[in-house]
């Protein structure tokens, strides 16, 4: 693995060396390393690019890393990864994609991740996106996440895209069964002419299911963002979504929430706030000796922390 690929790995997976536990590293469209454990098996799919990750019931405290790095300009790929998480597991899954594009052809990675989380299993899923390189070629990422939570299961997803991705369309769908809970925390910062679109559709199918979608984003310069969330309550459930965006320069942000209650005990809430940095926040930090630019940086850094 070369220096550029290692840098991308460090950015998307905080990996500086070979991770502990199970992992599968994909570099420029090919497998660059894999490790399985007694409880976690990783198998290459035969009908399409991608892998199956099978986690045995009752596996606790283990982690799986599946980073992807693209450093060759012009690579376009779609990868299908399926996670089968057995009953009563408690595991962390860390995915992430880094694209370095120093050339003029567009590089694109579409990761299609499906999660089948069995009864009472608990998953923390972390996904980071990062782009670098000074070529003219676009860096494009279109992640699709499809989540199926069985009774009593829970999944917490953290997704972060802070730098360097020119275009992203992120689609997340989820089916939440009785007593299951889903939390998604999204952080996005766009600049230049970047475009980021997020689309959540959550179907609350079982009694006492819950979902909490939290999106915080900063749009700078001429970038554009669209946040869509659809929560459908088909049972007694709690659904909450929140979109909080700071807009700067000439940027544009749209928040389009949709709530549908098909059950008398479905409680659904959406909150959205879009606005520039408050003048009094800048002034407060300036009275502490920061310049206006430094104050802005601190506010944005804190907001996306």
């Amino acid at each position, binding site marked *: 693995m070369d220096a550029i690929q290692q840098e991308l790995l460090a950015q998307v997976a905080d990996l500086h060396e070979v991770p502990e536990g199970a992992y599968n590293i994909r570099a420029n469209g090919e497998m660059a390393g894999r490790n399985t454990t007694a409880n976690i098996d990783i198998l290459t799919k035969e009908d399409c690019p991608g892998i199956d990750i099978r986690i045995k019931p009752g596996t606790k405290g283990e982690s799986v890393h599946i980073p992807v790095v693209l450093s060759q300009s012009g690579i376009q790929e779609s990868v299908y990864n399926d996670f089968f998480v057995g009953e009563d597991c408690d595991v962390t899954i860390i995915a992430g994609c880094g694209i370095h594009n120093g050339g003029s052809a567009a590089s694109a990675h579409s990761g299609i991740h499906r999660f089948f989380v069995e009864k009472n299993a608990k998953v923390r899923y972390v996904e980071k996106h990062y782009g670098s390189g000074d070529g003219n070629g676009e860096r494009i990422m279109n992640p699709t996440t499809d989540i199926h939570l069985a009774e009593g299961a829970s999944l917490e997803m953290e997704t972060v895209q802070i730098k360097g991705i020119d275009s992203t369309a992120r689609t997340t769908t989820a089916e939440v069964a009785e007593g299951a809970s889903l939390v998604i925390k999204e952080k996005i910062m766009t600049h230049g002419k970047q475009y980021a679109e997020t689309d959540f559709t959550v179907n609350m199918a079982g009694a006492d299911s819950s979902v909490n979608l939290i999106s*915080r984003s900063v749009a700078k310069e001429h970038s554009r963002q669209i946040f869509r969330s659809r929560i459908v309550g088909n049972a007694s459930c709690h659904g909450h979504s929140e979109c909080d965006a700071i807009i700067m320069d000439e940027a544009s942000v749209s928040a389009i929430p949709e709530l549908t209650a098909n059950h008398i005990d479905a409680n659904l809430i959406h909150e959205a706030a879009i606005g520039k940095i408050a003048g009094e926040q800048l002034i407060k930090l300036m009275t502490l000796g920061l310049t206006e630019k430094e104050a802005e940086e*601190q*506010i944005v850094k804190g907001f996306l922390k």
Partner: protein
Amino acid sequence: MLELKNISFQADDDGKEIEILKDINLKVEDRFVAVTGPNGSGKSTLAKIVAGILKPTEGQIFLDGVDITEKSITERAQMGISFAFQQPVRFKGLTVKDMLSLAAGRETAVSEVCSMLSEVGLCARDYVNREINASLSGGELKRIEIAMIMARKAKVSIFDEPEAGIDLWSFQNLIRVFEKMHTEIQGTILIISHQERILNIADQIVLLSDGRIEKTGSREEVMPDLLGAGQPCKTLTDKL
């Protein structure tokens, strides 16, 4: 030393110019100076002009003999002026520790944050990593605001009505903080307040009325006037 020379400030009110401050001349030499006066007398405007948030229409401001009238908020802060807002600002994501570090101008250790917060009667364990957001009460925010000013260790610390928005019980504790500050601080404190207990510890009191300095001097000189000031109008006295 802070000095204001012929400071006037006019604001635009629906196309009509109104004079908020009129030819203010003031030398702040004592350690603890309180500015008081009725609502609308221009106290907060005066504080904001010193901090650089508002620009005076006329006049000059000097800090240790240097004319700072044209200096920005940032420059004044770096020169040693510190300002506690009447209504502290909330920040999503920034924690108490982040803000105290920014105020101190360097990364602060948890033990330092602990000692700063205990000065204002807060237990660090409960607050270090709390975000300065809507989950904090007005009284908590106010104390954190004061802790930030103490962390700055500036030459001139301005407090704009530290008692505003605080319940009586919290205020009793705050008074102790100012009493302590009065004995310990190395610079000058300029405090805008209506509270007798704060005026009682001031070395100098400035009474503002209708944009002018009506009286300034030691508390023995100003306090008697103050208690007699603001006599109710005839309509009210007739009713009484």
